[in-house]
C-alpha cells in the first residue's frame, strides 16, 4: 500500500499529525498564499452515502488550493446501483483524478479501495469504522484551545458506532492525554478500539455517567446517540436524556473547558450552551477546510514528487 493513503487514524504518528496541523495553521494565518497552489489538480469525490458537510468541506478545500473537483454524484443514479463492485468503481475513477476521497457505508471500504488505486486515497468515513480527517480537525481544534499534552479529554455519547470517536481515541494515544469515555453500557467502545488503546498504554477510563469526571475535563467531545440503535423509542429517550448537556450542567466544569461536537447535533447539546465560552463546535467545523487543504496539499505534493 502507498504510504500516502489516509485510511485510519491508527496509521498516524505524532509527527504526521503535527505536520498536518502545522500546515493548517500556516494556511489559517495566510489563506491567500495557498490559492492556486494546485491549479490543474483534480480531486475525485466518491460519496457512496450522503454527507453534505464532509463533501463540501473537501470541495471547498480543493478549490481554495486552486484545484477542481469531480463528483461521482448520487449513488442512486450511478452504475453502483447496477451492482458494480466498489473495487471496479474506484479503478475507473482513479483515472479521472489526482486524488480520491471515499465515503462508504461499509467498514473497511477505504482499506480495500486503497488496494486497487494508485492515486492517494482519503477515507472520509467508512461505516462505523474510521473518519481520520475529522480527527485531524478535532485535534487542530483541541490544540488551539487546550494544547495536546497533559490534558484530560472526555468523550461522550455513542462510542460504539461513532467512527469519529474511534479515530479520535486512537490518534490521542500519540499525546499525553487522559481519556475518559462516557456512554451507556450498550454503546461502549468496540473491542478493537479498546484493544488498541490498551496496547498503546493509553490512560483510559470508562464511565456510564459524566458527573464524576466533568470537573476534571479540559475537553468534552460530545457525539450523537442515534435513535436507530435502539429497538424501542422509550429506551432511546431514557438513554439519550442522560447524555445531554445544558448550560447549568457546565457550572461544575473548569472555566477553560472546551466543548466539541463533530456535528450535526440533535439535542445532546442544548442551544443555550452555544452562548457560553465553552462552545467551540462551530469553530471546529470551520477548521475542516484548512485541515483538508493541508492534507490535500501534502498528498498532492508527495504525489508529484513521486512522479518526477
Amino acid at each position: 500500500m502507498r504510504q500516502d493513503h489516509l485510511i485510519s487514524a491508527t496509521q498516524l504518528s505524532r509527527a504526521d499529525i503535527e505536520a498536518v496541523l502545522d500546515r493548517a495553521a500556516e494556511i489559517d494565518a495566510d489563506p491567500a498564499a495557498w490559492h492556486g497552489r494546485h491549479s490543474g489538480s483534480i480531486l475525485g469525490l466518491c460519496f457512496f452515502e450522503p454527507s453534505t458537510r464532509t463533501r463540501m468541506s473537501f470541495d471547498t478545500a480543493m478549490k481554495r488550493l486552486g484545484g477542481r473537483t469531480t463528483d461521482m454524484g448520487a449513488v442512486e443514479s450511478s452504475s453502483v446501483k447496477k451492482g458494480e463492485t466498489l473495487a471496479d468503481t474506484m479503478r475507473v475513477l482513479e483515472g479521472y483524478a489526482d486524488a480520491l476521497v471515499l465515503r462508504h457505508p461499509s467498514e473497511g471500504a477505504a482499506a480495500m479501495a486503497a488496494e486497487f488505486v494508485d492515486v492517494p486515497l482519503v477515507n472520509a468515513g467508512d461505516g462505523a469504522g474510521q473518519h481520520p480527517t475529522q480527527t485531524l480537525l478535532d485535534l487542530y481544534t483541541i490544540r488551539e484551545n487546550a494544547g495536546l499534552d497533559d490534558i484530560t479529554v472526555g468523550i461522550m455519547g455513542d462510542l460504539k458506532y461513532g467512527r469519529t470517536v474511534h479515530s479520535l481515541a486512537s490518534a490521542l494515544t500519540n499525546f499525553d492525554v487522559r481519556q475518559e469515555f462516557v456512554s451507556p453500557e450498550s454503546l461502549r467502545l468496540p473491542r478493537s478500539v479498546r484493544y488498541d488503546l490498551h496496547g498503546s498504554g493509553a490512560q483510559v477510563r470508562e464511565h456510564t455517567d459524566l458527573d464524576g469526571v466533568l470537573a476534571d475535563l479540559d475537553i468534552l467531545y460530545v457525539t450523537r446517540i442515534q435513535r436507530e440503535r435502539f429497538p424501542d423509542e422509550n429506551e432511546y429517550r431514557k438513554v439519550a436524556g442522560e447524555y445531554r448537556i445544558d448550560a447549568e450542567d457546565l457550572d461544575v466544569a473548569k472555566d477553560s473547558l472546551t466543548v466539541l461536537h463533530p456535528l450535526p447535533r440533535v439535542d445532546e447539546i442544548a442551544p443555550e450552551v452555544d452562548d457560553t465560552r465553552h462552545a467551540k463546535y462551530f469553530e471546529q467545523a470551520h477548521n475542516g477546510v484548512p485541515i483538508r487543504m493541508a492534507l490535500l496539499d501534502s498528498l498532492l505534493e508527495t504525489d508529484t514528487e513521486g512522479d518526477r
Partner: protein
Amino acid sequence: MTDTDRELRVSKIRNGTVIDHLTAGQALNVLALLGIDGSGGETVSVGMNVPSDTLATKDIVKVEDRELSQSEVDVLAVISPEATINIIRDYEVIEKQRIERPESVEGVLSCPNRNCITTGDEPIRTRFAVLEEGLRCHYCDEIVRESEITSHLTVT
C-alpha cells in the same frame, strides 16, 4: 507405541490426512473448515474425546484422499494449536507436520461483521491478523476472541 499408531490401527486410511491431537470438541469445526459435510462422498473417520497421552482427551479426524491447503492449516493452528497433521500414503505416515501459529489467515474465514466490506461481492480475499488471543479483520478491524472463533466465523 505412540497414541497415533494406536489410532491408526483402529481405522487405517490408505491415502489422505490424519489430523490428530485436536483440542477436544474441535473435530466438527475442523470438518466444517475442510468443507466436509458428507455430501461429497469422502471417507471420513472422526474420534471425539479420545483418551490421549499428551492431552487429557483429544479429537481426531481422518480424511481419505484429501490434503490440507496452507490456509486450512493456518486456521487449524488458530483453533487447535496442539494439532498435528500426518499425511498418509499407502497406509504409511510419510510426513508428520507440527503446525505453527500463523501471523495471518487468508481466504478461508469470513468476517462476522455483517457490515464489513469483505461480506459483499468485492474481488478480495478475507484476511485476519492473528492476535495473541484471537483474530482481527484486516479490513474492518473487528476482533474475534479465540473462544468465539468457531461460532462467529464461517468457513468460506
